[in-house]
């Protein structure tokens, strides 16, 4: 992906725009330039392709190539621009087209084979409404007929997109566009008008709390670091998002990296840090590329480096690629990893805000937390504090997936009920029955239908035995086995635990063994075997408590949460596994045996052909049978059988 800004453009930004950023009033040549960058009036068609990790998997790059091929083939002059994500992951690839005089209109599921027909239509002023999903609202352009406006769509209407206001709209690789949309004005304002202390105070007043899961007051954390008398402080942006099923931060960086960079600069200024580090997992190639590009551009136009905006404040930002360990989301482990050591947490106190990287005060904030800062500075703490509830201000970004009708990425104001998340995701996929909403990752909890009225709130949810987590949300339908799910989480924890302290290392291992034991066919059918299994479940509760009480870091302390909650909300399912040896969702592989009903089987051979382990035998046109030892329980035969002859016990 090429950089969007030309050298000349960057030079213009550097010389004409940046020095006057804080005035906010522009001479004509600049406002014309901004208008062009915002694509308010276009001379030739502009085609926007949403390119993010998620859409790349959906084929966005192939779509982009097809578009370029089309333009080439038909000698059409048009600009092709990469943009971020609107959050409608299920509808990707999304392509938007803006032709002169008309509003910008978005098409979904644009696979390469649809490119020709869609572009043929739209470039000639004609739209196939089945592919178009929304158009942008604009005073100066003529709208398309019969296409809803973006802010009319329930999906956008129900959200409060403060941080995501630019996501999907602007090009993440262009600092010029970001500035044209009002970016970096908060930084200019802060550096002109506020001292370190002022910003700390503003953030304290705004009531912003950390979005990474710990919900610590951001301002208080900064204040702590500011109070240590030293010349060197560090700010670390934790972008090592590693909850399975959470991709909030990644999409934010991919869609609007400059907002994150601005947040980093502002926060570094607030804690008077001389260096900021971004810790991001090496695997997230697209995010790394975009944030690195954003940093380079910021350096080039003089918003980073020596003497930012003539304030005398200098800052360097470095990107560190995390080699991948879940535990490195923990502050002290992250610091160890940055120091080139095994990412094992250390004891607190001392807290990183006092004694962190290289022994210096270090503030570690999550990507989303930092992205809030420019908004707070621009609009003031009161504006921010008006959103949300008593204890939880502002908005929270969620990524909703699992068995959701549509996988999406949304931003909601605090105080909305959890049910909104389910609504935004369009309910459960394929009309299946809703079972639970899992909030967070391996240390999150599953919420049942009757708890969905709980408000999204850092304080209220824990009172109801729920934790908000970092923002990953999984919709679970009735094909999910809760035992299997918590077993999966415990398996994750036992592998991702750093292994340093006994409760977390041995406790998670033991819990996994107990869960594994009850999801397996018992070796013998003797009477006390069931008793043993039941005793294991009793032990789970003790273990959970000890793990929470004694673990060294947050990973171990929160790891038993899903089990405790599941034992409470889905106890019957556990009991079924133990006493009846039955998995109602038929997920626990060892508890199910497939067999073919002789009466129904027509001998069509379909299942035998599809069986990945060749476990199905028989003669065509007479009934088949399954060899139990070979069967891996994948259930493909059942899905394949047109006659409904495959069952499991």
């Amino acid at each position, binding site marked *: 992906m090429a950089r969007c800004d030309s050298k000349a453009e960057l030079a213009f930004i550097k010389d004409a725009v940046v020095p006057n950023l804080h005035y906010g009033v522009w001479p004509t040549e600049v406002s014309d330039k901004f208008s062009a960058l915002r694509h308010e009036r276009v001379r030739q068609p502009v085609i926007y392709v949403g390119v993010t990790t998620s859409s790349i998997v959906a084929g966005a790059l192939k779509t982009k190539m097809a578009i370029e091929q089309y333009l080439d083939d038909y000698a059409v002059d048009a600009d092709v621009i990469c943009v971020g994500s609107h959050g409608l992951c299920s509808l990707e690839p999304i392509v938007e087209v803006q032709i002169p005089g008309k509003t910008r209109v978005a098409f979904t599921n644009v696979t390469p084979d649809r490119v020709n027909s869609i572009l043929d239509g739209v470039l000639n002023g004609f739209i196939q409404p089945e592919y178009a999903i929304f158009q942008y609202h604009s005073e100066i352009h003529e709208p398309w007929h019969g296409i809803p406006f973006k802010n009319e769509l329930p999906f956008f209407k129900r959200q409060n997109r403060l941080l995501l206001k630019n996501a999907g709209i602007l090009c993440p690789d262009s600092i010029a566009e970001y500035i044209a949309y009002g970016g970096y004005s908060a930084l200019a304002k802060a550096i002109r008008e506020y001292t370190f202390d002022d910003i700390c105070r503003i953030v304290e007043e705004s009531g912003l709390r950390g979005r990474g899961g710990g919900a610590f007051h951001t301002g208080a954390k900064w204040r702590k670091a500011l109070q240590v008398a030293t010349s060197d402080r560090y700010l670390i942006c934790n972008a090592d998002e590693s909850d*399975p099923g959470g991709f909030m931060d990644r999409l934010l960086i991919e869609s609007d990296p400059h907002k994150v960079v601005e947040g980093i600069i502002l926060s570094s200024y607030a804690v008077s840090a001389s260096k900021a580090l971004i810790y991001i997992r090496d695997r997230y190639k697209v995010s790394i590329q975009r944030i690195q590009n954003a940093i380079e551009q910021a350096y080039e136009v003089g918003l980073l480096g020596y003497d930012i905006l003539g304030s005398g404040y200098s800052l360097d930002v470095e990107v560190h690629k995390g080699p991948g360990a879940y535990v490195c989301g923990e502050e002290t482990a992250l610091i160890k990893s940055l120091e080139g050591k095994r990412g094992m947490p250390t004891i607190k106190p001392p807290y990183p805000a006092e004694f962190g990287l290289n022994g210096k005060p270090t503030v570690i904030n999550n990507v989303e937390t930092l992205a809030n800062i420019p908004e707070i500075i621009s609009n003031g703490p009161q504006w921010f504090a008006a959103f949300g509830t008593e204890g939880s201000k502002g908005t929270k970004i969620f990524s909703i997936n699992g068995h959701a009708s549509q996988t999406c990425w949304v931003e909601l104001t605090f105080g909305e009920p959890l049910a909104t998340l389910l609504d935004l995701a369009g309910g459960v996929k394929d009309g299946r029955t809703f079972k639970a909403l899992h909030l967070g990752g391996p240390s999150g909890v599953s919420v049942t239908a009757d708890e969905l009225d709980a408000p999204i709130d850092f304080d209220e949810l824990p009172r109801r035995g729920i934790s908000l987590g970092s923002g990953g949300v999984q919709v679970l339908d009735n094909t999910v086995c809760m035992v299997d799910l918590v077993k999966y989480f415990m398996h994750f924890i036992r592998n991702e635990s*750093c292994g340093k302290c006994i409760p977390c290392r041995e406790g998670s291992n033991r819990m996994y063994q107990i869960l594994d034991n009850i999801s397996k066919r018992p070796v013998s059918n003797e009477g006390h075997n069931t008793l043993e299994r039941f005793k294991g479940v009793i032990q789970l509760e003790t273990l959970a408590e000890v793990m929470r009480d004694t673990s060294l870091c947050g990973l171990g302390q929160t790891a038993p949460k899903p089990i405790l909650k599941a034992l409470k909300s889905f106890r019957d399912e556990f009991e079924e596994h133990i006493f009846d040896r039955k998995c109602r969702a038929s997920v626990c592989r060892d508890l199910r045996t497939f067999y073919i009903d002789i009466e129904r089987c027509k001998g069509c051979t379909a299942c035998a052909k599809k069986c990945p*382990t060749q476990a199905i035998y028989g003669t065509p046109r007479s009934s088949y049978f399954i060899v139990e030892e070979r069967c891996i329980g994948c259930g493909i035969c059942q899905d394949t059988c047109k006659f409904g002859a495959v069952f499991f016990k």
Partner: protein
Amino acid sequence: MSKAEKIEEILERYSYLDSKSLIPILQDIQSELGSLNEEAIVLVGQRLNLPTSKIYGLATFYNQFKFEPKGKNHICLCNGTSCRLKGAKWNMVYLEENLKLKNGQTTRNGQFSLEVVTCMGACDHGPVISINEEYYREVDPEKLKHIINDLTQE
């Protein structure tokens, strides 16, 4: 260029050698050589003045670093919650039973290697796998079988 020379070349790129540059150096070496090995660890240890045991301990801590050479076809299998719910488990079972391939391993003929990762960020399209950076969506054992067959025949 021999392996040692390549490693030397990577080390040349770092102006300041201390334990802080250890992870980036190992990342560079791995992307150059495909995996780490004893030679690399010894060389890096000498230059950074670090005990090899510490480098080995660090490398085995993180998911990214591998000591087994990657297979010709490197399979990354997403086992994030979403992919898991949608059946990533059966793909793992399939690979284990048919290719005798477990996480972090390489088949004996060097054709395939498997890395189980958590969340590729493409939750809607799960279960997702990528083979040599090429993505496959909504993979079930049946589809996987075809993918593997195609790759074996190439």
